[in-house]
């Protein structure tokens, strides 16, 4: 049996090598697309398999004599990192094989350079998951941020893309400061920055809370938790689709990983009230994200807001697990944690699938605006049908995977009334109401997303010439869609893997979620059970029987004709409901969320124009005032810079005096 950590490290090294190999022939689409990206996908599959095998083994540490002198890199593979390594490998495999067919020359960055950035991004995400000291963690965390920044700005010739990239980089660094400070608190006076030292450090309750809140801030910024989410809807549309898929599907999960690592592993025993913070922010993000997703008219922005919703659900689950763990209800804490991990993996598959699906649409039509799409199911059947699986999964519909994790989370929420704290036991179940609302709204968003892009009549004449995805892209889409189906139909096996994580955290001693290969029983059989295979079988059987009976007793003749539409003969594509129209009820119901600017035509306009722009109030109420404040402070401080050498010498002299005064 090879060493677990070393085998993971070797595969990550292989990714880096593939990346550098791209520089040999940087202009060659063939080498990069037909050789290197498929190789990268194979490495991803291998990583997922290795992680699956490793998860069952005890934690394994490795010290690499690299980095600064006397500060070797520590690596460690345990159940938590293996779950996320599996997520990284499995989801990136689909995205890479899709990317093999997707990236072409002439799109900003040269293919070879793109290949380097892409694979360094993958390798650095893997190293973040393996890091076992703060140095290596921050180093790889920054590599991840930088490589993804360059990927976001692939089309760097467009100024708005450079702006989006800058915003992303800015918030990533503000978050990184939070994480750095959190590690600074976690070492607890030992000045040892290995995670082992942090596990051993004894923190006072106040400092532990500070470390947790700093980590929540830092990782929340990376994950896109409201109000630190503003970079997400800018960066995702700017990046090429496979990169958006990786960022949304995988990179946001590394932030979740970091939060779990700090909270449950490094801090050890979380206090119950900590959980209320991610719970509150998570619930708000879930509703906020999905409401804005419903109002979007750009398909990738829509998906970006949907990611904010899912991050909200994940953080809600983390908060719930902390509350349960803090009050000693360890079995339920484990259930909530399993729900979170399951949803993280699910989201990696379904969101990557939807993003690469939009990539195919973008390539075929050069259009991101929902107002100019439509009817693509006829021209792009492969993309349309495979994307349908992703859309149904993310809407949380059984028997696909999105339903399983939301169901587990709701089961955990339903037991929250037992929490022995005044008011808390009463308020927590209300969170279930908000999660249910977010899930139902996600269905609304997905009907809009899918219906406007793929169904109906094409809104532009050029759409009739759209072509379906190439075979490499189809394999990528198919892999991710298969992930959604398998994770939905056979949850029990996957839960076995995920339950190793709460066992590692010491929340439970043995597996608590029961059931067998076709059925999941989260707490007790009497309380709830779910058997997706049986579910699908019965629905499938009924459908087959119905078809059979109808064709036997009656007939299956059909004839094509013009659409009826209540007898209206001159139907055209502009009479369909638009993306704006679909957002209208949501804008109406959730009015306080939006800042809206509307231009309405008068009845006498020769060329009537209707325009509505949706903005986030957070920009005008928080970010712009903050930026103003920073600039004003900067201007005030700039007074110090007189530009005369004598003044600067005076500063040095005064500083020296002050230092001397302090020392003496």
């Amino acid at each position, binding site marked *: 049996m090879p060493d677990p950590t070393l085998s993971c490290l070797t595969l990550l090294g292989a990714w880096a090598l593939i990346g550098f190999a791209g520089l040999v022939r940087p202009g060659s689409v063939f080498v990069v697309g037909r050789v290197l990206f498929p190789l990268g996908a194979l490495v991803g599959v291998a990583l997922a398999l290795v992680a699956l095998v490793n998860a069952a083994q005890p934690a394994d540490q490795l010290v690499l004599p690299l980095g600064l002198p006397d500060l070797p890199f520590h690596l460690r593979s345990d159940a938590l990192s293996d779950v996320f390594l599996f997520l990284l490998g499995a989801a990136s495999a689909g995205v890479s094989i899709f990317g093999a067919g997707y990236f072409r020359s002439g799109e900003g960055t040269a293919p070879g350079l793109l290949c380097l950035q892409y694979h360094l991004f993958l390798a650095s995400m893997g190293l973040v998951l393996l890091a076992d000291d703060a140095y290596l963690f921050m180093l790889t965390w920054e590599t991840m941020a930088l490589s993804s920044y360059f990927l976001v700005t692939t089309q760097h010739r467009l100024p708005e893309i450079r702006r989006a990239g800058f915003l992303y980089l800015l918030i990533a660094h503000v978050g990184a400061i939070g994480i750095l400070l959190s590690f600074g608190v976690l070492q607890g006076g030992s000045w040892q920055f290995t995670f082992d030292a942090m596990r051993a450090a004894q923190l006072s309750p106040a400092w532990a809370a500070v470390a947790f809140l700093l980590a929540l801030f830092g990782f929340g910024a990376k994950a896109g938790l409201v109000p630190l989410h503003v970079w997400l809807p800018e960066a995702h549309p700017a990046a090429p689709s496979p990169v958006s898929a990786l960022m949304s599907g995988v990179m946001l999960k590394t932030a979740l990983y970091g939060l779990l690592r700090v909270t449950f592993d490094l801090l050890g025993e979380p206090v119950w009230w900590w959980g209320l913070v991610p719970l509150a922010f998570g619930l708000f993000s879930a509703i906020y994200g999905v409401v804005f997703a419903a109002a979007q008219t750009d398909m990738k922005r829509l998906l970006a807001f949907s990611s904010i919703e899912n991050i909200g659900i994940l953080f809600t689950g983390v908060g719930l697990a902390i509350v349960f763990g803090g009050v000693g209800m360890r079995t339920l804490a484990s259930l909530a944690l399993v729900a979170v991990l399951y949803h993280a993996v699910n989201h990696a598959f379904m969101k990557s699938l939807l993003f690469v699906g939009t990539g195919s649409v973008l390539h075929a039509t050069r259009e991101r605006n929902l107002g100019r799409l439509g009817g693509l*199911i006829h021209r792009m059947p492969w993309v349309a049908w495979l994307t349908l699986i992703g859309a149904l999964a993310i809407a949380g*519909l059984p028997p696909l995977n999105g339903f399983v994790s939301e169901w587990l989370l709701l089961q955990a929420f339903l037991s929250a009334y037992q929490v022995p704290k005044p008011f808390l036991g009463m308020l927590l179940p209300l969170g279930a109401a908000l999660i249910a609302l977010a899930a*139902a709204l996600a269905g609304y968003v997905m009907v809009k997303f899918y219906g406007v892009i793929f169904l109906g009549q094409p809104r532009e004449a050029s759409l009739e010439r759209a072509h379906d995805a190439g075979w490499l892209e189809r394999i990528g889409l198919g892999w991710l869609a298969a992930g959604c189906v398998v994770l939905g139909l056979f949850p029990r096996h996957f839960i076995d893997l995920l339950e190793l994580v709460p066992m590692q955290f010491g929340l439970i001693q043995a597996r608590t979620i029961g059931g067998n290969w076709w059925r999941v029983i989260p707490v007790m059989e009497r309380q709830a059970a779910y058997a997706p295979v049986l579910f699908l079988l019965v629905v499938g059987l009924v459908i087959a029987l119905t078809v059979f009976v109808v064709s036997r007793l009656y007939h299956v003749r059909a004839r094509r004709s013009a659409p009826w539409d209540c007898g209206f003969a001159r139907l055209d594509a502009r009479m369909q409901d638009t993306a704006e129209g679909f957002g209208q009820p949501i804008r109406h119901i959730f009015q306080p969320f939006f800042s809206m600017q509307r231009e309405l035509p008068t009845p006498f306009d020769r060329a009537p124009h209707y325009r509505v722009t949706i903005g986030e109030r957070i920009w005008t109420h928080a970010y712009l005032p903050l930026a103003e404040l920073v600039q004003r402070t900067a201007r005030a401080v700039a007074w110090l810079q007189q530009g005369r050498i004598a003044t600067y010498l005076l500063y040095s002299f005064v500083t020296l005096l002050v230092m001397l005064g302090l020392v003496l």
Partner: protein
Amino acid sequence: MSVIPWLTQALEVLAAIAVAPLFVGWIVQCRAWLQNKSAPSIWLPYRAIHKLFHKEAVLAERASPLFRFAPYVVFGSMVCAAAIIPSMGTRLPFSGAADAIALVGLLATARVFVSLAAMDVGTAFGTLGARREMMVGFLAEPALLMVIFVASLISSSTALPEISDALATQPFALYPSLAFTAVAFVLVLLAENARIPVDNPATHLELTMIHEAMLLEYSARHLALMEWAAALKLFNYACIGFALFVPWGVATEQAQTPAALFASLPILAAKLAAAGVGLALIETVSAKLRVFRAPEFLATAFLLAVLGLLVNLLLRA
């Protein structure tokens, strides 16, 4: 695994499929009586379905395979839902396969497919109907979930047969929380089944129609399946209501046999008859709301259900 329980399960489902159009016919009958009209035959829904199956299907030129496939999915989902809901017996084998949350998910699947199919041809009415249906749905679905949560807190189970069993077998008690949720449930039932005041099942071609707007492009067997599925949906909702609020008279013995099922059939018939009268009464005394008011109607349902949850947690009753 013995055959008898599964046979019983199949019988229950077949009975649901068979009875559903009759329930619709009964409501039409009651409403006609209340409104001093002469009613069409109570068997009319069957005849309409039979007639539609005989016709040749006419599909729009632009209809995709999704459009043809959706009626089967919707019908299949509704039949599967009928298998989960304990309409006549609570200890049937399929009840362990899915709980009430999965049931809500299944109803959502059906709704999503109806809406997607409505958007498929790309007509003005179809897309409008799909949007409205999803608008009603996203408010009604969490309200229904809340109703189920309240019942699950009382019986500490989210499995509908267990809830029904627990409520039916324990000594009779009045739950204030269930009173709130019962009102919420009736509102959800009206909205989800396209009844007045949210939608009007009696008219075609109203500008504010929801359900009918989505079915405009369907004809023949596809329309028949959609209409049958809608009838089944109404039947399912009524049976969810019975399971939660009047759970008595359902066969609860461990060993389920077709005989036990038949014994509970008259009680179900009586409940359905009463529910039909109630629905007809509501539809007679209330007027249709503007579409813009529908969210308020459903928000009321949602808040009532949440209130029920709070009352339950406060009073533990």
